[in-house]
């Protein structure tokens, strides 16, 4: 159930500028509204895109969230690879990684 909650947070913040403003002002009060487990909360608080990717966040939700965080494209792609390097394969969902860790698919 908590993957659902984590994705719900991403859904809410990605589409609603009011949630974005509240989150920028006070991250923890926004996160209190979701039933997250520790590593999900920590990953969001730290902006750890790699961990959120490995936890199974839908890629579209995560891509829009990384854009909101202001991550440049190649940094975002590398952050996901770094997540798999550090935490192992994607644990849930459809957005698993099929290429090699050292593979630069589109030169990024």
């Amino acid at each position, binding site marked *: 159930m908590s993957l*659902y909650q984590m*994705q*719900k947070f*991403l*859904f809410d913040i*990605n*589409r609603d500028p009011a949630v974005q403003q509240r989150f920028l002002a006070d991250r923890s009060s926004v996160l209190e509204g979701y039933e997250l487990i520790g590593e999900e909360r920590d990953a969001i608080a730290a902006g750890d895109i790699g961990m959120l*990717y490995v936890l199974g966040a*839908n*890629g*579209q*939700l*995560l*891509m*829009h969230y990384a*854009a*909101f965080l*202001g991550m440049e*494209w190649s940094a975002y*792609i590398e952050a*996901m*690879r770094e997540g*798999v390097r550090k935490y192992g394969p994607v644990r849930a969902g*459809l*957005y*698993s*990684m*099929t*290429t090699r860790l050292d*593979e630069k*698919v*589109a*030169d*990024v």
Partner: protein
Amino acid sequence: MTLVFAGISSHAPGITGRAHMAEPAVVQEFHGAYFRMGERLAAARADALILVSAEHFANFFMSNMPAFAVGMASDYEGPIEDPQWLGIARRKVPGDADLSKRLISEMMQTVDVAYAEEWKFDHGIMVPLHFLTPRYDVPVIPMNINCQGPPLTPLHRAWAFGEAIRRAADAAPQRIALVGAGGISHWPATPDSGKINEAWDREFLEAWKANDKSAMLSYTDAATYRDAGQGGFEIRAFIAIAAAARGHGTVQHYRPIPIFSVGCTVASMDIGR
């Protein structure tokens, strides 16, 4: 009236957002083909544009996921994404609530659609509009097929959805353009982004051009996921257009552009009887 234009095109956010990262001549060729599709659409003098796309959690989520949704607002807003990241400014886009209501009422005779009086556009709709109606002067009726949150809408239901669009368009007095945006094979929003199965794409496009219903409906989600990635699920939008147009297709542009994450496609279909 009826449908006066039908086509399909890619909608990946890199098409606009990462245009600066691709070979300029390649971008120019693709963007040029996309803009020319818009010119043909304008020449068809459509009163409204139905844009069937696969959205990416701008409105619909696993709390209440419709298999099909149709917008019913007088205006919409987009993109939800950071405008700089997408390369498209945030703006209002005109809709046509009365026409939406009319189409939905007819479509509901055969397909259970959810309707939405609020709808925010993401790249799935904003990227096509950027090229097709760059002055945002044609009212848009957004339609969504669930290609994101499994269980996904079955392919044969996407076909039925397209048939319902055609029946509804035939019964409306307006001249209606129809575009399906998405696909084809791609592995977006992963480290695989840029992987493209060109052979798979070309095979699908052959079936689409020939309006070969049984070939298009023969794909299983397991095989599509394996061969065409999770982005391949968006063939649903293309299938709906073939069902609605009942014609034969012509591909004006197809070329894999890895930094855009897709085989960049622009194609039209004539309107069959």
